[in-house]
């Protein structure tokens, strides 16, 4: 499937160099955003809220804030990387090279995961400073970070291939990702919602991602964890297949 490792690594180091030209946007902005969420909701407001299933509110909120930032980092990385290359036509450098479609996608997704992991490490350090970080299961934690990054990386690639304007890059974030994150249990348990609204949480993919990451960190789960993990793997596989197909037919890539 992957034979041109040098080509793949070139894609990664090229994008890392691009990110190093915009460190505030790529690294600092999500850290400041996370710091404010943790400080206001976790520390200030959370100090006046009772524990949830034996956990301090800041410990409950932290995995949700972390997942929101992982989702944003993954989606932004994929959209900006692919859309800018299309906009500049520098994507043609990759199209004329002997990289397979799988290698092109693997290169793009590798960078998405690297950016998500770097963002996650930065936020974890902030969390440590607030005493909000626990690790119930490291393998499960890594599973959620990597698979959710892949899912939003694939979604970002699809949007970047579809978009004709910069404006269109934000549609999914504004109308779906942000609202679904907020109602996906970042700041509250599903039990806190009115009963008629709970179905919305269980039908929300973001709920399973947040719930899964929270379980891996503090061992608290409100939903079927195994179902969430299987759903996540299947969703990543389906989106990956769609992206592969789009690359193979050249949708949004080749004239």
């Amino acid at each position: 499937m992957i034979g041109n490792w040098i080509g793949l690594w070139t894609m990664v180091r090229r994008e890392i160099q691009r990110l190093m030209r915009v460190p505030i946007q790529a690294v600092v902005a999500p850290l400041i955003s996370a710091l404010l969420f943790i400080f206001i909701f976790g520390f200030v407001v959370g100090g006046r809220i009772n524990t949830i299933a034996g956990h301090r509110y800041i410990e409950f909120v932290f995995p949700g804030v972390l997942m929101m930032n992982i989702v944003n980092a993954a989606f932004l990385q994929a959209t900006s990387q692919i859309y800018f290359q299309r906009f500049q036509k520098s994507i043609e450098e990759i199209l004329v090279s002997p990289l397979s479609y799988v290698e092109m996608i693997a290169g793009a997704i590798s960078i998405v995961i690297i950016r998500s992991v770097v963002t996650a490490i930065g936020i974890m350090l902030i969390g440590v400073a607030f005493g909000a970080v626990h690790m119930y299961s490291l393998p499960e934690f890594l599973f959620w970070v990597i698979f959710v990054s892949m899912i939003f990386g694939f979604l970002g690639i699809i949007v970047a291939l579809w978009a004709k304007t910069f404006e269109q890059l934000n549609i999914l974030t504004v109308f779906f990702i942000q609202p679904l994150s907020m109602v996906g249990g970042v700041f509250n348990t599903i039990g806190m919602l009115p009963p008629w609204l709970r179905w919305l949480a269980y039908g929300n993919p973001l709920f399973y991602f947040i719930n899964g990451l929270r379980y891996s960190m503090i061992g608290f789960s409100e939903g079927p964890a195994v179902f969430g993990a299987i759903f996540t793997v299947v969703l990543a596989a389906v989106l990956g297949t769609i992206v592969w197909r789009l690359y193979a037919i050249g949708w949004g890539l080749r004239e």
Partner: protein
Amino acid sequence: MTPALEISHLRKVYRSGTVAVEDVSLTIQPGDFFGFLGPNGAGKSTTIHCITGISNPTSGTIKIFGVDAVADYRKARTLVGLSPQEFNVDPFANARNIVDWMGGYFGIPAAVRQKRVDMLIERFDLVPHANKPFRELSGGLKRRVILARAMVNDPQLLILDEPTAGVDVELRMDLWRYLQELNRDGKTILLTSHYLEEIERLCRTIAIVAHGQIVRHGPKEEFFTEPGGLERAYLAATGKVADHIAAGAR
């Protein structure tokens, strides 16, 4: 002998419905220096895009040294180097990185790549400019970077889409010498240009394309046995001769 490039009944229709290439068939022998002439919008660049994977052909076949450019695209790409008409690069990247990254995409190991990049940077007089962002370079320097990038994988078939458009006389002459050297060393070159003297000077075989079809194709000598030479043949083949004569009479 396996042709360097064999295009058979290539057709390209864009999603907008525009027929860019109607029916192009041509064969380029290994070691040839092939001139591809035609007015703007005739289908030259689209044909090149189909050869190199930037565009999907609607129908027809393209073989590069016998390798199908669609079915076996990875192998076909290793044989080709492209200098496109437009500057399709990250404008914030520097010249050295642009050439190096392309070598990386082709899977060239770092040690070999570095030597190759150094050689090309030197060959195209880019040493003082190698670490400057592409967007800060002059038009001629940008063109040199694009040419160096096209040659980083030491391609068997070099495709140059208007490589001397907007460059000064010095670079043009230097590039002509370099291309002749490469051709003498066995590289097959496909060159498009609007400068007829460039085609006359460099190419051994010429094809003229108009309205998405090859309207004239043959050895260079054929074009010079006619009165008016290549210019007259070009205008006649592209249907512009009447206008040209009328303008001359005025």
